[in-house]
């Protein structure tokens, strides 16, 4: 072995955005090569196939049933992927020490985190797009045509993606300092609380107990309200979704994701790797 063959060449550092992109592309490649991902797509397609069958025996409400089941399948399988891959994103890199070689390169820890996050998000977008195509095929098979109101299905899928973006950020955050098991519990706990946070606040108000009311109010304002992202019923019934809600949800998710990623970067940047 001799290193003399290697010519010295000028070396310009990769700009920060490029560093995160390099990590993101590799994270996407990892997910694509992971067989678990294909199983999830398979199950999602089975679910959509089932929607067609159920739709055929639901005379007059085929579209309603297919859209409901299809979007629910996209949401559930997306959540499973976001949580189970998200909580292992950083933990796995530390456990397997693959992070050691990476952080020895000119890579900031926050760049690594953003890259991992973007990579998983890209994976979720691609998978959701595939499942969406399956749903569209099922809808075409049953109805033989698309309606103008079907645009709301796309909006509902977009909301699901916003929800997944939030859940992934939460999973990544917990992955920075706890085990996948605990991170799953924490992420699921926040997700479920987020779905019912309006009810939790109402419960506090009903209790007439100031302490309870204060606690439930804190939960209501602190935990992201995942209920806002549920447009499955509107899509199934073909109800219009206002543009205001679209940008409000977008801004809401972007704000929360930014805050969570900032918190994750703060925690991870000060963490001693074992």
């Amino acid at each position, binding site marked *: *072995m*001799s*290193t*003399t*063959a*290697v*010519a*010295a*060449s000028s*070396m*310009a*550092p*990769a*700009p920060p955005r*490029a*560093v995160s992109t*390099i990590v993101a592309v*590799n994270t996407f*490649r*990892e997910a694509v*090569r*992971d067989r678990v991902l294909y199983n999830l797509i398979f199950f999602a397609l089975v679910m959509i196939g089932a929607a067609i069958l159920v739709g055929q025996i639901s005379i007059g409400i085929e579209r309603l049933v297919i859209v409901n089941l299809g979007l629910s399948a996209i949401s559930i399988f997306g959540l499973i992927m976001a949580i189970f891959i998200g909580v292992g994103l950083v933990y796995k890199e530390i456990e*397997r*020490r*693959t*992070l*050691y*070689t990476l*952080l*020895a*390169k*000119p*890579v*900031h820890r926050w760049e690594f985190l953003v890259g991992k996050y973007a990579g998983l998000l890209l994976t979720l977008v691609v998978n959701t797009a595939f499942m969406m195509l399956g749903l569209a095929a099922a809808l075409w098979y049953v109805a033989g045509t698309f309606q103008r109101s079907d645009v709301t299905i796309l909006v509902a899928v977009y909301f699901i993606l916003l929800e997944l973006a939030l859940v992934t950020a939460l999973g990544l955050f917990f992955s920075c300092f706890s085990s996948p098991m605990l991170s799953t519990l924490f992420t699921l706990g926040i997700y479920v609380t987020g779905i019912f946070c309006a009810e939790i606040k109402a419960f506090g108000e009903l209790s007439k107990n100031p302490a309870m009311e204060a606690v439930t109010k804190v939960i209501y304002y602190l935990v992201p309200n995942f209920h806002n992202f549920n447009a499955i019923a509107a899509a199934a019934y073909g109800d219009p979704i206002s543009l205001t809600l679209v940008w409000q949800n977008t801004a809401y998710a972007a704000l929360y994701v930014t805050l969570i990623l900032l918190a994750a970067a703060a925690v991870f940047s*000060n963490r*001693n*790797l074992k």
Partner: protein
Amino acid sequence: MSTPAIEIQGLTKDYPVGFWRKRMRRSLDGLSLEVHDNEIFGFLGPNGAGKTTTLKLLMGLIFPTAGTARVRGRSIDDVAMHREIGYLPEQPYFYDYLTARELLDYCSRFFGFSSQDRRTRIDRFLELVGLVSAADIQLRKFSKGMLQRVGIAQAIIHDPQVVFLDEPMSGLDPVGRREVRDVIFDLKRQGRTVFFSTHILSDAESLCDRVAVLHQGKLQGTGAPGDIVSMETHGMEVLFELRAGAAPPAKLANRAKQTGRRYRLDVPETDLYAALEELKACDARILSVTPLRPSLEDYFFKLVGGEKKPSHALEVAQQ
């Protein structure tokens, strides 16, 4: 005076231990040393001495409790410093879904090389570490030695000025170890600095310009391997052969140890000529006469409290 390649001052690391009642355990205790430019520097110590902790601190994987370190004048907190260094972790583990070629491509992307430059480098470094035929095999199918080779390639693919290798010979067969030695020498020839940790003392003795010995987190000594161990001889070792059927001289019979047809005899320096006369008288063939000096290994064992006696048989056999 030129800036040292590596400058460590009072580097200390405490780890919390215990679950309920956390106590701090000192893993590295005020390490201070300088590694000069274009030096092969061996970092020696038994398991748990603090070698890997030091390397992790220098790489920014963990943070010091106290102390500072600089590499080529840049603080270890400065990510830009990483452009000038390469690092092979101990028992490296890489993304096993990637092929060797993909891993090298991934690693070289962080240095902003053009795609053409990356391709050229990848081919050259795959050849350098002897992995051309395995370039497109996923790393999950690699043996430990192959992983070590790809690890070395990723550490030097960007021509770093300072290369940190944590137990680089670990998991390699004799051929692989020799190849790694060649790489280290080549890096030095190109003007680079190599800092490597090892517990294989013969590697350190044969490779290093200077070594540092670490024990229980504390620096025990720094210097050229010859400075670390005393050059004073403990005696002389005579290796000889006798003709078939011949017996060693009666005076030496008790002291000579036989291995096949060969005998090894350890004698005080003052008795050497008398012993050689005896051997000449019985027509023995003298194979070698070697002064017995304490090796780095003996120093090492003394340091860690072992009672190992100087053993030179292996070294003599290797010569």
